[in-house]
């Protein structure tokens, strides 16, 4: 059990995109702000800050969650993946390539969040139906694309993934 005074910072350590990160944070600091301000990974975007828009979605222990609805202290000891962790050795992730190909983005503000939810779906190994893709996307607001290109990109990624035997 640990008890802190109001302003006292708490030491936390977590694994972010495969890298060990240690930091000190006020308990009230949101995970989204910790990722952007303390770790310097600004690919995670902050839109509404109350869990509606989905821009700040990251993978928390493999699950897509809104990082504005978590405190950084709650992520102590966890594994986080952000959009910066998708590309490997300078090569874009399959989903990133297909979002470009299928016009799955325009202004790009919502894209990092949508990508992370899509990665969770892709990693589940199941071939999602269009309905399941739409259900997942209901957690993200995009005001540019009308979602059509986004859905095509994800469907295409799932097909490719299946051909490759689920490697990604």
């Amino acid at each position: 059990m640990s008890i802190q005074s109001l302003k006292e910072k708490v030491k936390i350590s977590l694994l972010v995109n495969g890298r060990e990160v240690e930091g000190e944070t006020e308990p009230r600091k949101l995970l989204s702000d910790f990722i952007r301000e303390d770790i310097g990974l600004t690919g995670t975007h902050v839109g509404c800050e109350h869990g509606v828009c989905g821009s700040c979605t990251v993978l928390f222990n493999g699950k897509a969650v809104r990082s504005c609805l978590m405190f950084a202290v709650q992520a102590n000891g966890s594994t986080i993946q952000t959009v910066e962790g998708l590309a490997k050795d300078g090569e874009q992730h399959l989903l990133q390539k297909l979002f470009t190909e299928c016009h799955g983005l325009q202004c790009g503000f919502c894209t990092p969040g949508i990508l992370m939810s899509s990665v969770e779906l892709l990693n589940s190994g199941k071939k999602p139906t269009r309905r399941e893709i739409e259900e997942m996307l209901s957690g993200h607001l995009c005001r540019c694309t009308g979602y059509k290109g986004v859905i095509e990109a994800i469907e295409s990624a799932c097909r490719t993934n299946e051909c490759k035997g689920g490697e990604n």
Partner: protein
Amino acid sequence: MKPATFTYHCPSNLEAAVQLLDVIGSEGKIIAGGQSFIPILNMRMSEPGCLIDIHQIKELKGIRVEDGVLKIGALTTQRELEQHDVIKTNIPLLSEATQFIGHVQTRNRGTVGGSVAHADPSAELPLCFLALDAEIVIHSIDGSRKTSINDFFVTYLTTELMPEEILTEIHVSLSQFNGYAFEEFSRRHGDFALAAAACLLSVGETGKIENARLVLGGVEAVPLLAEEAMRFLKGKSLSDETLERAVELAVIDADPDTDLHASKEYRLHLAKVLTRKALLKAYNRGLQKEG
């Protein structure tokens, strides 16, 4: 939008948590998944002096069946509930309703116990657990107690939980109902429901309803058990007239508020439409299983 300052405690077991709650009392607030609570903190609609984060408490996790009773740990996530095979097989009402809770991304963190303790009158799980006549297990430094869900909800966002108490488990008898349905209407998928209905029926071989449970949401300060309609349905087959009469009886005690999202009249209209849909769907499912 940043929360006000608070002290943070992260007890590693239930014993430590109830000791903390005893010392801190009403200054403290328990945080589980935080999917309803953190928006409230971010908007500074609430500024508790202290948060007690229960996520490490293993005793509160998981779903198990003991002596014909399904025991759902308070920290079970809504996503786990939605996907759990035991739930899908035995209490499909819960799997069906859970899909209406927020989005996959919030269900991944939002907890079952959190939903029930938060007590939003339009939330899905409080409705379902009232339909299922669940029992709520509560712990404090003085030990544990059980309470019926009938007595649990007091008014908007208020339950009979005392500041030093923690909701630890929800108990549901394995269903003797063969028909179930959950219906709700919201402006956008995942938003708060304007109105909702949860229905459980046991339909006999001859098509007679042997037992009925019907709960409405969004029409009162707490989930509303439609007792008149439940009594009326017992022993009847669901003819058109029976259905219409049951729908009328279901909303007899409903007195929804008018707010920005919907007028009183519109909510009542929705409640009737959803009740009709839920009753029909539950009845047809019950008949199919019976035949």
